[in-house]
């Protein structure tokens, strides 16, 4: 299985390459990619340099152009595709049917991957993208069990990539408007979820309130660390009871089920986290590199403690196990 690692910045790209990534993925510094955060991403020149660095070391570069193009401004997405091709991207990761159609018509030889944001979760949906647009790999939505993934892999004429570690969307990606309901900005339109510009932390009556767009996402007693108020990881009230009604602050971690994913025929594992720092990235990539090397050579995958690298110190195998549902 190929290890696909996040590169939020040029230096993160070098970190991931050096730590053993088989491929890195990154985006341009605008709303054409789904991690459109201040201080992240690449200029076209930086991408070309990053590609050169990666290719010298045998690492592939995948460029995410995976938001849904804004009406009237589709040339911004076209330009991003053209610049990624120009920079020598090994693949472009696309979600929007319009962008996909344009890219496949204009760059017939360019390898295209289907972003998780396209939410292709069935063999029929995946075949549609393969047959109509020549997609070579699909990133599967985080809604499937390992058994369902194995059935899909056996039934589609392309590679599959699954999420392995990091932040965990609990809603089907590309089909979630929670962020824009509270803030006006969404992953689909703006490449952001629960954006920092709409976050407010306030000390009130002995507790810290974390708000998003004016809605309280969680409250923390004095001294307890506060998590970032990602909407779907908040504590809310349902019928008078406070609970993490969607999901707890937690990180996806598939280390425990790596052999099952390999047996399912998955082609690539994706580490989430283009917004993460270099220390985090280096640690996670190294651990997964070691685990995959062990797996590929028939050794037992060593147990590894990710501890502080996880959100809230908690891990989950998410939808890969049926009980999560």
């Amino acid at each position: 299985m190929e290890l696909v690692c996040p590169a939020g910045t040029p230096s993160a790209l070098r970190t991931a390459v050096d730590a053993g990534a088989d491929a890195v993925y990154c985006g341009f510094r605008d709303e054409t990619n789904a991690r459109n955060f201040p201080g992240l991403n690449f200029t076209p020149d930086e991408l070309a340099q990053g590609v050169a660095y990666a290719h010298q070391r045998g690492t592939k570069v995948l460029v995410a152009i995976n938001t849904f193009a804004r009406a009237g401004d589709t040339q911004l997405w076209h330009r991003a595709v053209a610049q990624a091709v120009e920079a020598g991207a090994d693949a472009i990761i696309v979600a929007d049917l319009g962008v996909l159609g344009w890219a496949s018509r204009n760059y017939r030889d360019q390898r295209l991957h289907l972003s998780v944001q396209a939410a292709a979760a069935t063999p029929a949906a995946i075949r549609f993208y393969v047959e109509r647009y020549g997609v070579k790999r699909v990133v599967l939505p985080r809604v499937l069990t390992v058994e369902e993934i194995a059935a899909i892999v056996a039934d589609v004429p392309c590679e599959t990539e699954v999420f392995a570690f990091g932040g965990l969307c609990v809603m089907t990606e590309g089909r979630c408007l929670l962020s824009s309901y509270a803030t006006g900005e969404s992953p689909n339109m703006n490449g952001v979820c629960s954006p920092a510009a709409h976050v407010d932390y306030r000390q009130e009556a002995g507790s810290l309130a974390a708000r998003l767009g004016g809605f309280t996402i969680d409250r923390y007693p004095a001294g307890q660390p506060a998590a970032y108020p990602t909407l779907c990881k908040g504590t809310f009230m349902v019928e008078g009871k406070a609970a993490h009604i969607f999901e707890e602050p937690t990180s996806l971690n598939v280390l425990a089920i790596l052999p099952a994913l390999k047996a399912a025929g998955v082609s690539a594992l994706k580490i989430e986290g283009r917004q993460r720092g270099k220390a985090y990235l280096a640690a996670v990539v190294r651990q997964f590199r070691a685990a995959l090397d062990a797996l590929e050579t028939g050794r037992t995958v060593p147990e590894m403690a990710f501890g502080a690298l996880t959100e809230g110190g908690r891990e989950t195998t998410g939808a890969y196990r049926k009980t999560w549902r």
Partner: protein
Amino acid sequence: MKLTLGPVLFNWPTPMWADFYARIADEAPVDRVIVGEVVCSKRTPFRNDVIGEVIERLERGGKEVALAALALPTLKREINEVASLAGCGYLVEINDVTALAALAGTPHLVGPLVNVYNEETLAEFESLGSTTIALSPELPLSSIAILGAAKQQADLEVFAFGRAPLAISARCYHARAHGLPKDACKYVCEQDLDGLDVDTLDGQSFLAVNGVQTMGFGVTVLAQEIPGLHEMGVSRLRLSPHTCDMVGVAKAYRELADGRLASSELIVKLEAMNLPGTIVNGYPHGKPGAVLVS
């Protein structure tokens, strides 16, 4: 402007569901009715006994009927159900690319859970046979205007009334809220006919849970925006069913669209109808969906 009654998104008991459509058939001035389960396939078997009658009744009432496809098919049974909609003899509204793959090349409708955000995607769907495209509730008027100018043969539909569908998941939040696994959910979603309200820790109304679906607490009501939407080339308004008087809602929208009712009067009428949440309309104005822009 034509009116579309969207599918019932909630788990209404089958007799209530059938009675609802009987009244719609006889009394509601809507042009098209979308029938069928979108959210959870576990709800479908109970309705299979009556859906034939429901469709016949609606057609006798002069409504055009289309069948809704499931939003997130993952089980083999669900995938087969979606695939079998091709060739079922009725118009179908797709809600994901599984259904699109089955219906590509034949006339079909596109539901608001499918992402059509720009003119090139719109053209792509038109070339695949989409005859009506219901736009995502989060699209601002600036985008809708461009889509309206760019469309060829397809009708554009805008989500005008109801709790906006915001997200769909593999996990059932209704079952989770009751401490039950999804596979043994006891159909607890049947207890909340307009969704289960989700408040913040400060007691502010925020969201609503409907099985694997999450919606806004607020009820989207487009009113003052309707004449402008018509000018932009939007030709259909979608009304999403709730337990309030949907015949009354449809009549009010019919009068508004025909210029016989002012938007302020529509709001007054709707506010008297026991809506499940407060009125919101932020999305078309490029604001958070949860806010009201007056």
